[in-house]
């Protein structure tokens, strides 16, 4: 058991996975001596050498494209994209190559590539450094998408992801990098990678969140509890595919759901949650599924980001609207 930040938990998880499997490589911009701009790869190059922790040229398509080749050769590359807004130069390689290779090859070519992306706002950054592009990847068949919300999940999920034989986009909630918790670092993973977690049980309404918004949802549930409202909070963890049984069981019971995410809502993962729930639980729902999300604008200047991002108040407002419906 160790008390670590989420960033350090990722670092320890990566270290363990590199120790266990010599085929695991880490690659990206500044992942070597600097240890990544968030220090997630800190110390790895020193210990595993420049051939396994590769500082790459500054070109994201190149990072992913060469990772594809390395994976075909039998390696398990873990690629770091420095910030959410910089994954787009690699989008073509991700969508047309990484996502489709196993299908196109009739199952002959596996691409066990992990694409790590720090994402989301709340750290006062300049443009392109606060985005939540997860829906693009969720909409892409052939990819899987996961995200962690706390140090323990960070530690275990990164290892499970790297061990997975499919390409996985691993979103890291950058505003939670410095959150600390006790993490049990021995034994086996406490739960499978693809499972959603009931982060707080409750009966009146289900709050569905992931990554950086889990904390906001938990805070909202705690605040609501003081007013006698019993809110269940689900941390999705896996964004594609979503662990529907856990989500649906909860909403079937509570009859009400609010989905929270930083990303713009239009044609997004939160749309999917609402669409699915109304389809599968039409007769159980007592109120429409509501969404609390970023607005459908580009990410705004940081001085106004707190108004853009879902916060305790906006979540509680939606909870109230749902309960009153």
């Amino acid at each position: 058991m160790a008390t670590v930040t989420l960033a350090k938990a990722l670092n320890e998880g990566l270290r363990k996975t590199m120790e266990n499997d010599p085929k695991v490589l880490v690659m990206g911009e500044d992942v070597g001596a600097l240890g990544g701009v968030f220090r997630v790869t800190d110390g790895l190059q020193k210990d595993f050498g420049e051939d396994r922790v590769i500082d790459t040229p500054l070109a994201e398509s190149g990072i992913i494209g060469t990772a594809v080749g390395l994976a075909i050769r039998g390696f398990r590359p873990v690629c770091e994209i420095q910030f959410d807004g910089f994954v787009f130069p690699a989008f073509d390689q991700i969508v047309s190559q990484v996502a489709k290779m196993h299908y196109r090859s009739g199952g002959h070519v596996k691409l066990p590539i992990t694409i790590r992306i720090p994402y989301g706002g709340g750290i006062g950054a300049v443009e392109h450094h606060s985005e939540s592009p997860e829906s693009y990847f969720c909409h892409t068949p052939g990819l899987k998408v996961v995200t962690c919300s706390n140090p323990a999940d960070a530690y275990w999920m990164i290892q499970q992801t790297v061990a997975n034989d499919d390409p996985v986009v691993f979103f890291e909630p950058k505003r939670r990098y410095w959150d600390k918790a006790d993490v049990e670092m021995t034994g086996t993973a406490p739960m499978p990678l693809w499972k959603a977690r009931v982060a707080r049980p409750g009966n009146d309404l289900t709050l569905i969140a992931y990554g950086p918004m889990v904390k906001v949802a938990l805070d909202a549930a705690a605040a609501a509890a003081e007013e006698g409202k019993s809110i269940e909070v689900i941390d999705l963890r896996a964004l594609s595919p979503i662990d529907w049984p856990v989500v649906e069981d909860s909403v079937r019971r509570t009859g009400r759901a609010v989905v929270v995410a930083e990303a713009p809502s239009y044609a997004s993962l939160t749309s999917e949650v609402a669409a699915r729930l109304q389809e599968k639980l039409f007769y159980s729902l007592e109120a429409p599924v509501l969404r609390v999300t970023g607005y459908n604008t580009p990410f705004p200047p940081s001085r106004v980001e707190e108004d853009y991002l879902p916060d305790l108040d906006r979540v509680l407002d939606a909870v109230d609207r749902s309960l009153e419906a």
Partner: protein
Amino acid sequence: MPDPTPPAVTATPTVAGPELVQLLTPEGERLEHPDYAIDLTDDELFALYRDLVMVRRIDTEGFALTRQGELSLWASLQGQEAAQVGAGRALKPGDYAFPTYREHGVAYCKGVDPVTLLGLWRGVSQGGWDPHAGEFHLYTIVIGSQTLHATGFAMGIQRDGGDGACMAFFGDGASSQGDVNEAFVWASVFNAPMVFFCQNNQWAISEPLERQTRIPLYQRAQGFGFPGVRVDGNDVLAVLAVTRAALERAREGSGPTLIEAFTYRMGPHTTSDDPTRYRLSADVEAWKLKDPIERMKVYLARSGKADHDFFDQVEKEADDLAAHIRAGCLALEDPTPLSIFDNVYAEGSSLLDEERELMSSYLAGFAEGSHR
């Protein structure tokens, strides 16, 4: 105001010069080259001729099958046989090739049954072969992407102690893509055992070479710090010699080379294309005189190495290959509807399990007559 019209692209080389390695002239005359000597036995020469004829026959058959509606599309390599056979035969076991969609000839040299390639063009698969079996990767249609895959693969060779090299194929059009230039950066910076093999067939669908570059393409390499060489792409001996040397360089740890095989796309871009809209038949006629097979045939015949029997024998083998391809094509089975869900993921997906189940009972509904 600066004139939007760019200066004319460097003139097309038609004879061997300092800029074009050639060992066999269009007239079938054997030349020597100071840097690229090649000494082949008669059997090796016969084998190369045979390859050229086989590869052209694969192409003719693919084209015919498309015209007959058995394939939905075909990208013809006609005119590029020597480039592909020269490159393909330079590859040794342990060397890996990343093709575009036109390298049927390289596939043949790597021992891939041409029927294997047809699934994609017939629409029964998206490729579907095992790249490791023939050390020949899947066809890549998104222009340029494979050059990065190849470079990563070559970096893998560096890291796992392999002793092969890796070769990426691409076209003149592809040279404009960001990915291809990133591959140049990567291969150079990591000194990867790579050969970039550009078949400059002078057209990217309807766009002539000067829409992609204003200098000869092989010179691109010098901007990235590795050698580039232009070879007569219709001369199988020269291509073989130049590619062997580049692969050897790569295997030795001397890093990447760019080879520009200067050739010409004799046919349409694909069976869907109509080149009469954008190019002169006179150009095509001129290139017919440089035919890669004809010059080998003349050389073998004039030098007395081969006679009619040999040429007839090769024709017959080609007929057999064509029959094999045709039969193999017609035997390709259509995929089943439920196969749509196969192999999307190596480890499966709960979402797709659900969808497969839904489709399955929907299809069963038809059988039971519950749908119209």
